[in-house]
């Protein structure tokens, strides 16, 4: 009971802070659109190659936006020296994580709300519930892992380098399954349903693991 209250309080605090300062979301949205522009020049995308390349562009943009969002979530707490105060309240670490992950995931979803239409506009991907569902499911697991490593990295030296180094290998399963799901929608690949189930399995696995690991990462 207290855990849920703590998680919600943390998430609300982060979202209110973001709403008032509006620092991260505009930057993320702009970053995502810029990533599409760069991808266009990097890959020489035309209407024929778009179906093969667009899924990759989507996940690349999302992965790097995610790294920024999750990195910020804990870096700000560390810079303000508020992380220590939060830990010293004896609130359950897994609940603090859940709250941070919830807020960061919400920001990433906002950024997806820009990314998916932009992708449809520039590369002609379909804009469907099915696509949004796959992206959303991947966001859950990525948020759990991203927040855990962001919390760890915030306490290390050289934190900017270490977050992608630790997080990206663990995100690969989400990118594989998510990329597959998007490819199906663009007329290729195996089965959409299977990809979705895989994403759900990975979500469950990593949400459970990160909540078990929380107390080792967020203590003193």
């Amino acid at each position, binding site marked *: 009971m207290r855990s849920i209250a703590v998680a919600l309080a943390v998430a609300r605090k982060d979202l209110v802070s973001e709403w008032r300062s509006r620092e991260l979301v505009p930057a993320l949205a702009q970053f995502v659109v810029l990533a599409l522009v760069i991808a266009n020049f990097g890959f020489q995308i035309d209407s024929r190659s778009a179906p093969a390349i667009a899924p990759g562009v989507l996940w690349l943009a999302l992965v790097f936006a995610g790294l920024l969002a999750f990195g910020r979530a804990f870096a700000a707490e560390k810079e303000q020296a508020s992380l220590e105060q939060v830990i010293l309240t004896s609130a359950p670490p897994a609940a603090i994580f859940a709250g941070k992950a919830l807020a960061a995931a919400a920001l990433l979803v906002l950024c997806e709300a820009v990314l998916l239409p932009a992708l449809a506009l520039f590369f002609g991907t379909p804009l469907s519930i099915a696509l949004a569902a796959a992206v959303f499911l991947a966001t859950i697991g990525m948020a759990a892992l991203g927040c855990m490593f962001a919390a760890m990295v915030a306490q290390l030296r050289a934190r900017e380098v270490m977050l992608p180094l630790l997080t990206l290998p663990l995100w690969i399963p989400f990118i594989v399954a998510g990329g597959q799901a998007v490819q199906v929608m663009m007329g290729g690949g195996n089965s959409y349903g299977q990809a979705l189930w895989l994403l759900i399995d990975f979500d469950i*696995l990593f949400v459970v693991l990160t909540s078990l690991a929380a107390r080792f990462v967020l203590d003193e």
Partner: protein
Amino acid sequence: MNRYLVAAAAAVALMLAAAAFIFFFAPTDALQGPVQRIFYLHVSSAIAAFVSFAVVVVGSVAYLWRESIVGDRVARSAALVGVVFTTVTLVMGMMWAKPIWGTFWTWDARLTSTLVLWIIYAGYLLVRRLAAPGRQAARFAAVVGIFGFVDVPVVYFSVTWWRTVHPGPVISTDALPPEMLFTFLFTMACTLVLAAVMIAIRYRIEALSDAQPQSQFVLQAAQRPTS
């Protein structure tokens, strides 16, 4: 002569014996030619790497569960050895792949997951350097070690489900002639001995550096009885 030196000499002798078997006893493969001889050490070092990382996980769990310094030290030693064997596996695999597949690299399940394994445990070694020495380094590294080990089968599975071209296991299908099978098993045994000796020596080094007066571990151990 101290026993570490003896063990190291024995491991090197065993590896030379394995090399003799590989080059002079095992027959040349009819299809692949001499390149196939890479297989013996390639698969053996892959197995040694996996065993090392399994040891990392056991040590890490022991550390997180009971703050066992021995567990942490075992994990530290095995991680380094595991990274070395993973490097050997990857490089030898690429040397084999170029003439046989016509390319150094392909993104199939085994190659991808082995590469991911290498990246994660290289990250493990980095976390150890960048975290505050003592408890924080041990805890963070343990979490990375355990997550990495869980992640690898997941990556393997997700890529398999996607696409794969790596030759499947050949041992179980009886496709290997007895000389080849013997050479392989012998090489594998020798490589595992080598890995064990390397971990033991590394453990000794870690234990000695933990015994430095400024080490956090010595002080923590000294604290035990009072708390």
